[in-house]
């Protein structure tokens, strides 16, 4: 039975492809590192990949990535989850409340549970009652924002370090410190050598006083990929997002899979709220998510509904998010980086014979290059705009290569197959 689903829903890659693919990924990673390093040396903006910048970027990435992973779970099962923002908001409250009373690990579970409650609400509305997914998500976000603001005032007002809109002084999850490696890499990174120091900075960022949550998030990326693409459960779940009628005829309980997917999705978004409260900042504050749930949704699309792609896209958001808070000169150097990357894409397109898009990439690339050459710094506000403009640009330039699950967002009723 499951082999039939395999052929209809998603053909597995031929066995030899995976080795070639990982080799290609390595090549891309090295190439990217070389480009970043060149830009750093040319512009002299060492801040663009200093250890501090990278750590800030990683920490800013995690909440967005968790939301994106949540989005993947839901949308792979065919449910659009705009409610990620609301589930994340619920997660921030759960994180603060449970951490305050029971410590950071119970807080982690609490945040996940609160997000999960949001997921259940969305699942009931969209799966059982067939409400439009966007409508349900919008309503959920309103409810969550109101509920958390209200609950914060009701429960945090009289606590130590609490107020009507905040709760600070919470214990945080432990940090990872690799004794010898971290320091050695840090010293090497400070030498600003071409490529070597850049690689060392990455190692140092991961091994020096880094929150354990970053590792947990990385593990969740791997887990999501493994469950969704390597298990029967995942295959069935994805079949509900590609062709629920076909899945139904093969005996898959589509409602149940959609429920499970949306609930897991909510829990992931809730964990994103936990990251925000305990790792990215020093406590809970009302309105903390600031649209990161939506950004996570964008990262998921931009990552082509895949965990690794979402990780890459989230890193871009996290990086620009961290960058704008650091220094303006480094943001200016980013213009050059963007221009170079656009030219690389242009060359790739030319090789594929896609002339129309190549011209588009080239034109936008020249625009960024001219901007870089003619200006000395980027206004602070513009730096804050980067992730959003980048998303629009990437979606505009690359959307033809993206493919969402075929039945994503479509209503499904049991017994209407055929």
């Amino acid at each position, binding site marked *: 039975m499951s082999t039939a689903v395999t052929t209809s829903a998603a053909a597995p890659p031929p066995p030899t492809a995976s080795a070639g693919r990982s080799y290609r990924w390595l090549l891309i990673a090295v190439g990217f590192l070389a480009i970043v390093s060149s830009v750093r040396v040319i512009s002299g903006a060492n801040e663009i990949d200093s250890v501090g910048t990278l750590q800030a970027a990683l920490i800013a990435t995690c909440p967005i990535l968790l939301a994106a992973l949540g989005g993947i779970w839901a949308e792979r099962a065919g449910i659009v989850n705009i409610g990620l923002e609301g589930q994340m908001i619920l997660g921030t409250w759960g994180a603060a409340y449970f951490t305050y009373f029971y410590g950071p690990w119970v807080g982690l579970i609490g945040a996940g549970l609160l997000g999960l409650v949001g997921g259940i609400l969305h699942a009931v509305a969209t799966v059982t009652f*067939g409400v439009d997914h966007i409508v349900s998500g*919008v309503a959920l976000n309103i409810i969550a924002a109101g509920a958390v603001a209200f609950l914060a005032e009701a429960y945090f007002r009289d606590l130590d370090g609490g107020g009507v809109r905040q709760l600070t002084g919470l214990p945080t999850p432990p940090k990872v410190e690799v004794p010898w490696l971290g320091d050695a890499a840090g010293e090497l990174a400070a030498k600003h050598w071409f490529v070597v120091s850049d690689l060392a900075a990455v190692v140092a960022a991961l091994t020096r006083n880094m929150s354990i949550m970053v590792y947990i998030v990385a593990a969740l990326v791997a887990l999501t990929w493994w469950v969704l693409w390597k298990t029967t459960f995942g295959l069935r779940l994805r079949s509900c997002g590609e062709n629920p009628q076909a899945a139904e005829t093969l005996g898959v309980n589509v409602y149940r899979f959609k429920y499970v997917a949306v609930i897991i999705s909510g829990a992931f978004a809730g964990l994103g709220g936990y990251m925000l409260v305990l790792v990215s900042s020093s406590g809970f504050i009302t309105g903390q998510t600031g649209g990161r749930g939506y950004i996570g949704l964008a990262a998921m699309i931009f990552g082509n509904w895949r965990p690794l792609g979402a990780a890459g896209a989230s890193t871009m958001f996290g990086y620009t998010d961290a960058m704008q808070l650091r220094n303006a000169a480094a943001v200016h150097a980013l213009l050059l980086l963007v221009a170079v990357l656009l030219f690389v894409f242009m060359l790739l397109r030319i090789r594929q014979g896609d002339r129309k898009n190549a011209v588009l990439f080239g034109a936008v690339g020249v625009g960024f290059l001219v901007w870089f050459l003619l200006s000395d710094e980027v206004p602070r506000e513009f730096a804050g705009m980067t992730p959003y403009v980048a998303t629009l640009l990437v979606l505009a330039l690359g959307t033809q290569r993206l493919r969402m699950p075929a039945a994503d967002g479509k209503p499904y009723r049991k017994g209407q197959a055929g």
Partner: protein
Amino acid sequence: MTRLRNIVVAIAAPVLAIVFALLVTSIVIQISGGSAMDFIEIIFSWPSDRLLVNITNQAVMIYLAALAAAVGFRMNLFNIGIEGQYRVAGYAAAVVAGAAILPGFLNVALAILAAIAVGAAWAGIAAVLRVTRGVSEVISTIMLNAIAVTLTGYLLHTYGIRKGDSRQTTAIPESSQVPGWNPFSEGSSEIWSLGLLAVIAGVAFWLVLNKTRFGFDLRATGQSETAAVASGVSTKKMTLIAMLISGGIAGLVWLPSLFGGAHYYGSTFQTGLGFTGIAVALLGRNRALPIAFAALLFAFLNAQSNRLTIEAGISVEVIQITQGVIVLAVVIAYELVRRYRVHAEERDAAEAQRPGSTSEEVPV
């Protein structure tokens, strides 16, 4: 008979949703140590004269935002970007009106046109991306909302006049301010005259959608894209036009406040109307008249909730729970009614074939 049933359903569903939402909110308040009785009492008390004026003004702005959302929704376009569109349009209108190029009311007209144009242009970015590159308007408008905040922040910071800690645009000259009207003998609060824009927009919305070829095409595209394409409608063109209209209406949202009370863009700018508008459009099923009632309801709830903190020690935000649950409950109610109807039709058809047979139980 069916007509009567339709009317009953159309009224019963929202009323039940409101009751259910108030119940949920009361339970949340009671559980977290507040007094649900106080909440209900305050919500249902008659507002003061000043609040009544306030409710009218807020309802007008929410109504415009909801109309903007409804234009898109009617053809399955999700313009989540009203928030950003009315922000850039509000800023543009304030700058144009503040520059006072034309005298008196001509200046007002120019500013209104500028607001429509800028709002439409901002929505147009999303429309063009959708039509030419296939980018989902949900994502692009969310991004454009964020960009609008930083862009207006940057412009205000760079070109605005410093006033204390914040910055603002040049105030509108007195000759171009649009005075309001106070229906009560006491108090100084006024109903903004530019609220008439909402009435005009509402009537135009109804006429265009229900009485023109364009409106028919738009609704047809929303209900069945394939059928619309088959009958010769260019969906790309419709998407573009609907999005521009939506953005244009969104551009009007803040104008009554700008000309009636605020007089400049700065700390006076009111955020959040766009998202409220989306919820209100959903509650009013994207129809011109029901949306008006929904806008009044939301404005009423908002105004009443402001008294919760002072009089009962309950957080203002609790009203968002009520509003969100109303929206969710009402769409669920409509969906259940729709399913019941489909089922009833099937049953009627079955009974017509086999007279005397007993019908099965209706699962909901």
